[in-house]
């Protein structure tokens, strides 16, 4: 009996399989992973082949930048301009990296692995928890969960895009518009980001007839960067969007 009791005590010490952080991380992984279907289909419609669409999900693995890359290509922009837009859109991940480093203090190989899965969703899941052990679980479950599902559904989406044929007949160009608006939307949490978005949209329209395709996006990036650097609003504007499902904060559950 004594051994059974101590075994029970040991079991208690092991964290349960589903803690609040792992639950949130897992549901975010499913919601986010699913929308790789739209990325995969749009990537093929933009003219990339299956391997190129997959390479971006496996290696770049930051959804906004991947959508940016294929969005520029779809609009007739050069691969160089696609690279520029994708890279600039990934800059926020350096800020997330700092936050995760401060929370989790990963070392050695874990640090290299953590860097690859440092994205909006994993950062938001970790930041939504206050207990360090929960932050760690939330980060890894969301990060690795999104990574695995994102890559699986990328392939599914690319195959679907291939099967659809004429992208315009299915409104896939409209799907791209909706996808970008959907990525922007959760970051418009106050008046300032709405103002930034409006000014950058106007700058883009003005630049379209003047510069080669893809470059208007970089013009808007310059406007936004200068606005952020010299403006005086809060430091977190545009970072940590509300990710789906929306209840990522403990207090909103």
């Amino acid at each position, binding site marked *: 009996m004594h051994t059974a009791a101590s075994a029970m005590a040991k079991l208690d010490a092991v964290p349960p399989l589903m803690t609040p952080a792992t639950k949130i991380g897992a549901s975010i992984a499913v919601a986010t992973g699913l929308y790789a279907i739209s990325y995969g289909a749009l990537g093929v419609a933009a003219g990339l082949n299956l391997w190129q669409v997959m390479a971006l999900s496996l290696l770049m693995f930051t959804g906004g930048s991947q959508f940016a890359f294929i969005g520029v290509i779809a609009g007739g922009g050069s691969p160089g301009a696609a690279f520029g837009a994708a890279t600039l859109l990934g*800059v926020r991940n350096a800020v997330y990296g700092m936050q995760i480093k401060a929370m989790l203090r990963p070392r050695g190989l874990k640090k290299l692995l953590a860097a690859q899965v440092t994205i909006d969703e994993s950062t938001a899941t970790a930041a939504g928890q206050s207990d360090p052990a929960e932050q760690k679980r939330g980060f890894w479950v969301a990060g690795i969960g999104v990574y695995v599902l994102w890559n699986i559904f990328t392939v599914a989406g690319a195959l679907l895009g291939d099967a659809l044929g004429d992208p315009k007949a299915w409104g896939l160009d409209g799907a791209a518009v909706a996808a970008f608006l959907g990525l922007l939307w959760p970051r418009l949490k106050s008046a300032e980001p709405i103002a930034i978005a409006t000014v950058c949209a106007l700058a883009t*329209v003005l630049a379209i007839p003047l510069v080669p395709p893809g470059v208007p996006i970089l013009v808007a990036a310059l406007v936004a960067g200068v606005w952020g650097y010299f403006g005086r609003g809060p430091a977190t504007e545009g970072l940590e969007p509300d990710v789906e499902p929306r209840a990522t904060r403990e207090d909103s559950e």
Partner: protein
Amino acid sequence: MSEMWWWIFAGCAAAYGIKLLGYLVPEKILENEKMTRAAGTLTIGLLASLTIVNTVASGTAVAFDARLAALVAAGVALLLRAPFLVVVVVGAGAAALARYLGWG
């Protein structure tokens, strides 16, 4: 290897390098409030610009066509708090419908 592949690999390397930078650089250097802010506003500006480019750009011309219907429909779906994938499907449906009805 094609030019496209080179830019894809360069983009992937840059994306990973940026992520890793947050873990490697001493906190003091990146913990500059102006840099954090610029990273955030950059994200907003780029996504707004990408939305508009995909809506109205046709090469180097501005064109108003079925994609505008997608933008409006997606906006309505987001106001109704639809999940991301639903928003994308609504956008595609709106553009396809507008085109079917002979616009754009």
